[in-house]
C-alpha cells in the first residue's frame, strides 16, 4: 500500500510514498468492491464472483448495508463455488447443480449482461476463463464479459471503479452511433437514490438551477441502455474524481466527450471550480456568472456559522474526492485544520489537494496517506483538536478521548455544493454542543 506521514508541502512536491508492511486500515475498500459497487448499481447487470464465497458474502454486505440510506435494495451477488483442487486442476466449469441455481436466478432477473469476476486464485493461476464465459453464453443466451480485477489487483478500489465502468462502456464505445443531446452525465454516484437531500440530489439541483440538464447518472441506478445513451451527452462530469481513469479518458479521446469536474463540488470555492470546469467544456461562460449569484445567498448564511467556528481546530479525513472537498469547506468556515488524512492517493488528488490546502487559514501541520487505526489513536490522544470529521470507524478513538465527531462517510444531509457548507457547519455546531452522530455502529443518528 502507499503510505506517507509528514508535511503537506513535501507530499505535494514529491508525491512519493512508502510501502508499509502493516496496514490497520478501517476505511478503504478493495478493487473488487470498486468493481462490484459499479456493477451492482446497474439494474440489468448480473455480476458473478468466481470461486470465493468470502468475496460474495463480504462484498454484498458492504454494498447493501452501507447503501440502505441510498435506496440500495437487496441485489443478488452469486458465486461459482470452487475448491482448492478445482483451482489447481483448472476445473472452471459450472456443474449441473449450479446450473439449476443460475437458471432460476437468470430467468427471474433477465439480465442483459453477465460479468464474471475473477478471483485471486484464478488471477494468480493465470486461468483462461473464456471457456466458462462460453459455457454461460451458450446455456443462458446472455452476453457475458470477464472482469480480471480481484482483491490482489490493488490496495484500493480505484482500478475496480475504472475497470467496472470499462466493462460496461466496452459494449458500446466502438460501435454505437448514439443521438447527440444537450446535457451532461454525472459520473461516480453509485446508488439508485436521487433524493434531494443526498449528495447526488444537491448536485442535480444545482445544475438544474444553472440550466445544465443531467441526462444520466452513471452508474448508480442506471441500466445498460443508459450507459449506451450517455455516449450522446456533451460531457462526463465527475461527481467523484476517484473514477478518473482509462475508461473515461478513452471515452474522451474516442467519443469526444470531455471530462469535467476534477475538483469535487464541495465548499464555495470548490463548487465554483467544479462549475467553472463544466462551463468551460460546455463553452458557456454565463454559467459561471449565474453560479456566483446563487452563491451570494449562501455566503450571507454562512457568516454567523463562521463567527462561531472561526479558529476552531479540526482533524479531517477523506478519500481522493472527499478530503479536498471537506478541506474546502473548512476553508469557508475559517477552521484551522491541524491534521488531515487521505485514505488512498489518486493521481488527481495531488493538484486538487495542493490548491485547497492553500485556501485554509492555517495547517494542516501533518498529513497521513493510508492511515491506520493506531495513527488515528495517536492523533486523538494528543488532544490537539476541537472536533473531528472523518470516516465512520474513526468514532472509536474520538469516543475514547471525548472529541466531538462528525461522520463523513455515513450521513444524510448533503455535504456537497454550496448548501453543503451550511449543512456541515450546522453539524459541527451540533457536535460541539454534544450531539452524538454515531450512537449506532452502522447508521448515522443524524436527523434531517
Amino acid at each position, binding site marked *: 500500500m502507499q503510505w506517507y506521514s509528514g508535511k503537506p508541502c513535501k507530499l505535494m512536491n514529491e508525491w512519493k510514498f512508502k510501502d508499509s508492511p502493516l496496514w490497520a486500515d478501517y476505511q478503504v475498500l478493495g478493487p473488487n468492491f470498486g468493481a462490484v459497487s459499479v456493477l451492482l448499481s446497474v439494474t440489468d447487470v448480473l455480476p458473478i464472483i468466481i*470461486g470465493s464465497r468470502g468475496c460474495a458474502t*463480504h462484498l454484498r454486505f458492504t454494498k447493501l448495508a452501507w447503501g440502505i440510506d441510498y435506496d440500495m435494495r437487496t441485489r443478488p451477488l452469486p458465486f461459482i463455488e470452487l475448491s482448492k483442487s*478445482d483451482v489447481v486442476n483448472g476445473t472452471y466449469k459450472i456443474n449441473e447443480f449450479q446450473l439449476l441455481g443460475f437458471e432460476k436466478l437468470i430467468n427471474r432477473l433477465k439480465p442483459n449482461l453477465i460479468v464474471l469476476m475473477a478471483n485471486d486464485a484464478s488471477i494468480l493461476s493465470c486461468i483462461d476463463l473464456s471457456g466458462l464465459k462460453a459455457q454461460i453464453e451458450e446455456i443462458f443466451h446472455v452476453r457475458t464479459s470477464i472482469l480480471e480485477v480481484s482483491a490482489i489487483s490493488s490496495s484500493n478500489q480505484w482500478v475496480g471503479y475504472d475497470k467496472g465502468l470499462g466493462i460496461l462502456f466496452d459494449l458500446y464505445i466502438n460501435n454505437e452511433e448514439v443521438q447527440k443531446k444537450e446535457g451532461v452525465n454525472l459520473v461516480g454516484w453509485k446508488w439508485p437514490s436521487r433524493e434531494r437531500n443526498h449528495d447526488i440530489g444537491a448536485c442535480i439541483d444545482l445544475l438544474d438551477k444553472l440550466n445544465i440538464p443531467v441526462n444520466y447518472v452513471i452508474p448508480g441506478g442506471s441500466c445498460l441502455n443508459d450507459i449506451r445513451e450517455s455516449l450522446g451527452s456533451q460531457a462526463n462530469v465527475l461527481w467523484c474524481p476517484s473514477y478518473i481513469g482509462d475508461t473515461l479518458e478513452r471515452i474522451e479521446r474516442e467519443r469526444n466527450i470531455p471530462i469535467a469536474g476534477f475538483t469535487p463540488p464541495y465548499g464555495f470555492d470548490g463548487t465554483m471550480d467544479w462549475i467553472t470546469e463544466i462551463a468551460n467544456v460546455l463553452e458557456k461562460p454565463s454559467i459561471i456568472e449565474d453560479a456566483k449569484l446563487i452563491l451570494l445567498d449562501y455566503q450571507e448564511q454562512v457568516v454567523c456559522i463562521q463567527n462561531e467556528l472561526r479558529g476552531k481546530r479540526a482533524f479531517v479525513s477523506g478519500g481522493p474526492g472527499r478530503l479536498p472537498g471537506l478541506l474546502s469547506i473548512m476553508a469557508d468556515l475559517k477552521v484551522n485544520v491541524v491534521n488531515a488524512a487521505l485514505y488512498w492517493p489518486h493521481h488527481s488528488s495531488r493538484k486538487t489537494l495542493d490548491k485547497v490546502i492553500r485556501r485554509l487559514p492555517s495547517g494542516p501541520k501533518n498529513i497521513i496517506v493510508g492511515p*491506520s487505526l493506531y495513527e488515528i489513536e495517536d492523533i486523538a490522544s494528543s488532544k490537539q483538536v476541537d472536533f473531528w470529521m472523518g470516516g465512520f470507524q474513526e468514532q472509536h478513538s474520538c469516543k475514547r478521548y471525548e472529541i466531538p465527531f462528525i461522520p463523513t462517510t455515513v450521513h444524510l444531509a448533503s455535504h456537497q455544493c454550496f448548501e453543503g457548507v451550511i449543512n456541515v457547519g450546522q453539524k459541527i455546531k451540533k457536535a460541539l454542543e454534544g450531539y452524538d452522530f454515531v450512537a449506532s455502529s*452502522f447508521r448515522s443518528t443524524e436527523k434531517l
Partner: protein
Amino acid sequence: MNNLSRIEPLLGCGLGGVLKGIIGINGAVPLIHGPMSCASGHRIIPLFGSKEPLVPSTSLTEIDAVMGTKEKLINAIEKIYTLYKPPLIVIILTCATSLTSELFGPLLDSLQKELNIPIFLVDGSGITGDEIYGFREFYKQFVQWKKTQGVKNKNSEIELIGLSPADYDSEKNLQLLNRLITEFTSLSVKRVLFQELDNIDSTWDLLPSIPCGHLWAIEKKQQPAPYGADGTYAWLKYVSMITKSNLSLSIEESYLNTKKLINKFKQSYSVNNLKIAIEAESWWGVGLSKFFSEELGCKVLLSSDIDAFLYQKVNGEVANTIIDTGNVELTLEFDSFSPDMVFGSSYVKNHNWGWEPFWHPIYHVVDNTQSFMGWRGVSVLLTVLERVLSTT
C-alpha cells in the same frame, strides 16, 4: 458441497470464522496475510461484536505474490508486537497466500521464540473452507496450545465453547445460558470460548466443555440451542450428561409451567397453520426450528449449514432444510414458501412477511429485544407470534 444448486452462500470464508474466535480474546490481534480487501470486507465481524474494527493486513498485491511475502510478514508481525503487545497474534491466510503455499512454519516458530508470544497460522481462504471450518481450525489450535499449560480442575466449573461476541444478540443469549446453568445445575460457567477471555498466557484449568454455537457438532452427541420448553429441558440434560452432574429439582416446575404457557397459547391461537422461515447457523437454527415444529406444530423452512441437515438425518426432521443459502436466492425460496414470520438477517427482511432479527448481518435499526432462549424466551417468542397472528 459440489452438489448444491445454491449460488448465493449463507456462510462466508474461513477468515470470518477465525475472526469470530479472535475477537473473543481480549488483546489478541489478527493479521490478514493477503490483500487488504479480505481484511476490509471482514471488519464487520468485530463491529458485530461491538468491538473496534482492528483487522490489519499485509496488504499484498500481485507483485508480492510473485516475489514472495515472507519479509513483509515478518515486518508486519514485529510491528504488531511493538504497537499492541498482544497476548496472541493470529496469521490468517487468504486465497492468494493459501494458493502460493509459501512455507511459514519455521519463520513463525522463530518469531514466537523471539517475541515470547504464541503466533498461530490458520488458512482462512474461501477455497479451503467456510466460516465454521475457520472457527473450528482456530479453536483446535487454541486448545492444543492451552493443553500444554493445562491443569485439571476439580471444581464445579465448566466452559461453554463455540460462541463469539459477533453472534447476533450474543450478550443477552450468554446471560441467559449462564442463568440456566446457575439456576438449574450445581455448576458455574468459568469461561466462554470465545468471549471476553483474559490472561490467556497464564495457567489454564482444563474444564468440562459444553459444545455450543459454531462448535456444537464437533462431538458425536449433539444438542442444539435451548429454545422452547423441550429444547431448554433437553439442553440442561445435555449439560448434566457431559458434566455427570445433577440437575436441580426446580427444573420440572419451570418446564411444566412453560408447557402450560405454550398449551394455553395453542388453545387461543391456531398455530399449526403458521409458516415460519429461519436463516441461521445450525445450533441456533435447528434449536428454534424444533420449538416451532415440535412444540407448536408450525411448518418450518430453515436455511442453515450442513450440520443442520446431518443432525436431522440422525434425529428426525424438524424443518425443510436448505443448505448454505442466503440473500436474494434465499428470499426467493422464502417467497415460494410464503412464511408468516421470518427469523433471520437483514437480507431477508421483506414487506411480504413479519421479520425478527435473528442472524447477522443485521444492518437495519432494530428495537432491543430479550433473548429468545430458555424458558423465559418462550414468552418472548409467543409475544412475537401473537403480533403476527393478530394481523392475519
